[in-house]
């Protein structure tokens, strides 16, 4: 492509997001046609098919257009309503901008607007006929690791932005490191600002190849890259004709197609017990059920289970759930991530903090563990610190026996951490516990391998932790 073609492209096509397009009174085009969020049947009987949920987290560097891309996704899926657009348009005009700054849709706090930066993770919601999306929008610079870890902890897909002019930069490698560490299974790469590199296929291919090289180091299962221009809307929701060489999906088409969830039947049962239900009244006087959300696996009446850390064995007598009218329904099967009540055949001792697990694959009960932590508080994490450790529904006292090393996020090398781990640092620790806990390898079972370290005094969350496999010795690479 030549420079001439580029300038033609830019002058002949108005970006969809212009002040006039947004503010035209009663203009039907930009905001009103609710095809994407509306009842596709037009009858109000939606959903006629299973409408699922995808949680994703964005990751971008400063000025790579992340807020614009998120704004574009919301806008082109008709998820932004007229009063929100009016507000954005008004503020944009007050600031002397000719086009609405879609970043204003996502910066919610006064300090963010005043400083023109994003401080905290914000959650965005959009929806199509196929899926509902919960998008954790994480800021690219301030408190980078802390926010990205937070956003990625619940995400099934990470949306990583790369500026086509700059390619894979240090920040991109950080995004990959956090994404890999947190076990996010899918990555969508938006190679943005393609309009500024003449929609150059070689440029795109080179970026994709370099990204793939780094991604392979982190064991990411699934990566899809899309050339986009968030500003002009190319390949975000609607297909662009500016890159005929690209035959893959648009960004939204990919989000619509990526498989959500993990097959629960491929993982062993884990149910952290939240609460013991004992009505002690009326006809349910003798009822005793264990309320919890399946962290992984599938359960059926008759299944043999073990209650950890005690190790008592029993069988599932029944699986209960309340119906809309408040009556109990008995289920033939329950699977992650359903919230249910389990009844057991034996009168074993079960309380909040216990874990009901598959008897044939129960996981490890231990008083010491090693794992990787990301420090999310101003207070650094040091050797000999006394903290609380929370895993599943269990909280126990713990001592940081050792800070083994710190991951240097610039070089991806491990180095010594004699002063402990400061805010936003990632490193490996060994922890001793006051009581037994059941914990899994985070990389196999995310929900029961994740832990928090909590300040005993003020209750602050100090670090997000991911437990190693029990047989992993300290000294291996992350």
């Amino acid at each position, binding site marked *: 492509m030549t420079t001439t073609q580029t300038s033609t492209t830019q002058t002949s096509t108005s970006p969809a997001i212009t002040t006039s397009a947004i503010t035209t009174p009663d203009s039907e085009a930009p905001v009103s046609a609710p095809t994407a969020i509306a009842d596709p049947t037009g009858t109000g009987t939606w959903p006629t098919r299973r409408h699922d949920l995808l949680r994703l987290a964005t990751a971008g560097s400063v000025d790579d257009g992340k807020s614009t891309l998120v704004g574009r996704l919301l806008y082109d899926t008709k998820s932004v*309503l007229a009063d929100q657009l009016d507000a954005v348009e008004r*503020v944009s005009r007050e600031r002397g901008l000719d086009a609405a700054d879609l970043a204003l849709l996502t910066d919610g706090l006064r300090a963010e607007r005043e400083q023109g930066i994003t401080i905290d993770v914000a959650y965005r919601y959009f*929806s199509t006929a196929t899926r509902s999306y919960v998008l954790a929008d994480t800021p690219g610079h301030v408190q980078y690791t802390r926010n990205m870890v937070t956003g990625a902890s619940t995400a099934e897909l990470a949306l990583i932005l790369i500026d086509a002019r700059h390619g894979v930069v240090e920040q991109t490698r950080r995004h990959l490191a956090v994404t890999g560490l947190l076990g996010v299974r899918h990555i969508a790469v938006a190679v943005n600002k393609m309009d500024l590199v003449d929609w150059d296929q070689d440029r795109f291919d080179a970026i994709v190849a370099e990204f793939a090289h780094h991604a392979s180091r982190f064991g990411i299962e699934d990566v899809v890259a899309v050339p986009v221009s968030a500003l002009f809307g190319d390949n975000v929701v609607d297909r662009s004709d500016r890159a005929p060489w690209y035959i893959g999906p648009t960004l939204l088409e990919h989000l619509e197609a990526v498989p959500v969830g993990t097959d629960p039947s491929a993982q062993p049962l884990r149910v952290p017990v939240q609460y013991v239900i004992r009505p002690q009244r009326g006809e349910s006087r003798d009822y005793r059920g264990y309320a919890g959300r399946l962290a992984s696996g599938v359960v059926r009446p008759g299944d043999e289970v073990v209650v950890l850390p005690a190790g008592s064995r029993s069988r599932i007598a029944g699986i209960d759930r309340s119906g809309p009218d408040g009556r109990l329904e008995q289920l033939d099967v329950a699977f992650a991530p359903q919230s249910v009540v389990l009844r057991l055949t034996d009168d074993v001792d079960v309380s909040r903090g216990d874990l009901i697990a598959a008897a044939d694959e129960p996981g490890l009960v231990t008083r010491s563990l090693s794992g990787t932590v990301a420090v999310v508080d101003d207070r650094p994490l040091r050797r000999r610190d006394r903290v609380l450790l929370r895993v599943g529904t269990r909280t126990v006292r713990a001592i940081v026996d050792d800070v083994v090393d710190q991951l240097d996020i610039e070089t991806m090398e491990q180095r010594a951490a004699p002063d402990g781990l400061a805010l936003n640092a990632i490193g490996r620790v060994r922890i001793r516990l006051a009581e037994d806990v059941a914990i899994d390898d985070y990389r196999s079972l995310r929900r029961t391998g994740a832990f928090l370290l909590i300040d005993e005094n003020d209750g602050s969350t100090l670090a997000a932790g991911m437990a190693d496999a029990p047989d992993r010795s300290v000294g291996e690479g992350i």
Partner: protein
Amino acid sequence: MRAAHMTTTAARALPAHYTLDHLDHLESEAVHIFREVAGEFERPVILFSGGKDSVVMVHLALKAFAPAPLPFTLLHVDTGHNFPEVLRYRDETVERLGVRLVVAHVQDYIDDGRLRERADGTRNPLQTVPLLDAIEANRFDAVFGGGRRDEEKARAKERVFSLRDSFGAWDPRRQRPELWDLYNGKHAPGEHVRVFPLSNWTELDVWRYIEREGIELPDLYYAHEREVFARDGMWLSAGEWGGPKPSEEVQTRQVRYRTVGDMSCTGAVDSSATDVAGVIVELAGSRLTERGATRADDRMSEAAMEDRKKQGYF
């Protein structure tokens, strides 16, 4: 020509019998949150106004603990300008469930001079002090609110477990990061935690869930004839609270409410939706957000909600 896939993935669709619909996801998440609070706190309370979000909260909480009764108290901050039909619904619900309801009255504070009526007659901002007093007097340590992140951009930054100091203040810059579904409810004496089980729900999700579960709401959520007058581009209900002014003309229109709150600042919208399905069709075509369409107090400034939240508002 090439596709974008860098790695051919083993990504395959899940067996259909092991997948959840998005409302099931949201329900399971909310039930999990209610149970976490019941397990970690001594004296939780649900803010219950009779509004649709609080009705859905109570429905979810009942499901979370069945067949045991609801392990929470309910709390309502009555502005003195609440819709009578909503108060009636509130009292019927409390009666039916046999739960304890604590009511804090803004009017009491105005009567004895602790609060002063605002020039604009709006009482929503006046709820904060009675709310905080009720929390302190009853030593509530966890307070469930029906706030959703899709409502407003300051709320988009709210945590599911939101720590408040003894003044009830929200400091957005000192929020605890919320990781996985490991909610950290630790707090010091005098502090409390606001809990938002509907954080990830949208307005449309709430209505689809109401439809699916057959949940009953106060009648004013559906189209009905009402005497209204226009103020600030909204239809306000004529009533004892002080409207209309002599210059404001009262007319009868077919309207419904998208939110219910203080009558002085909650507007109705023109509507022909007489049932849940009708509301869902209207919402899907709506061009305005719930708060933009119906809440005068959120239009005051760009940071109106953020400022109220910092002072201890819901």
